[in-house]
């Protein structure tokens, strides 16, 4: 399968949350091209065009990444740290979507460069509404970095 040009990358290991998020995105017609990574290692392979994603190109970044923090193999904070400290991947919008209520996770995520942080609502209706709002904002209103913007550092204004 050549799922290299995903519009949304969903990094989530919990099947219920995955189903709910996909369902909400489909209802809003925001789910044209979603790729799912079920652990942090697979997510990093995607970001850095390695392993199963070796044929992917850095010039075709997803418009939105939804990142859970509690992940098998490599946790979400580590994924965020690696993605946001590399000029090739830094500009990809990453929204943390987590059940964590820890202030430490929130502050650390923003400090590492998370574009936003959302606590998963426990209530089904609210969860759907949240996914709708975040999908509309990040896929329609937000302007992504231009392609080819992932150049080496040193081009500051």
């Amino acid at each position: 399968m050549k799922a290299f040009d995903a519009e949304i990358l969903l990094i989530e290991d919990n099947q219920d949350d995955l189903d709910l998020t996909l369902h909400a995105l489909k209802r809003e017609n925001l789910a044209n091209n979603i790729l799912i990574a079920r652990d942090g290692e697979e997510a990093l392979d995607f970001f850095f065009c390695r392993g199963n994603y070796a044929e992917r190109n850095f010039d075709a970044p997803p418009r939105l990444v939804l990142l859970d923090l509690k992940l098998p193999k490599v946790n979400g904070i580590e994924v965020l740290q690696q993605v946001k400290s590399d000029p090739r991947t830094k500009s990809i919008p990453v929204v943390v979507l987590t059940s964590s209520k820890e202030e430490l996770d929130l502050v650390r995520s923003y400090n590492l460069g998370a574009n936003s942080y959302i606590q998963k609502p426990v209530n089904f209706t609210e969860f759907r509404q949240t996914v709708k709002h975040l999908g509309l904002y990040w896929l329609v209103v937000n302007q992504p970095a231009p392609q080819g913007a992932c150049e080496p550092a040193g081009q500051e204004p």
Partner: protein
Amino acid sequence: MKNQNMSPAEVLLVDDNPADLDLARDLLIANEHPRQVSAVTDGEDAVAFLRREGRFTSAQRPDLIILDLNLPRKNGWQVLEEVKADPKLRSTPVVIFSTSEAPRDIGNCYRLGANSYVRKPGNLQDFMAVIQSIGQFWFQNACFPRREEQ
């Protein structure tokens, strides 16, 4: 609708165009009821406000900064760079709100650590819709780090 841990947000608007500033502030207040919308009109005042310096010693640290790029005295990129290089400020999300569509402008903002880039529309109806989307996403759904009281 709001997440249980959320209190009304404090916002800092930075824009040198008084008409844009007033409209954005009125729309945010009308739609989302943030606790406070503060406004400054140039980049130096923005940094002074955030650091509570000069005439801003009693300023509230905002949860969200909405920042124009072409500003007098210190431009938006410089403000962004200072915010994201300051350990006390860097966790505060910054939404760039500018008329520029230049890929270079947008790319530079993300390189400097902007959390989001929203194009400022020229016509009133689109302007209203965009401000509403900003308010809806950030104030109804996103979580902000707790404000440290000083």
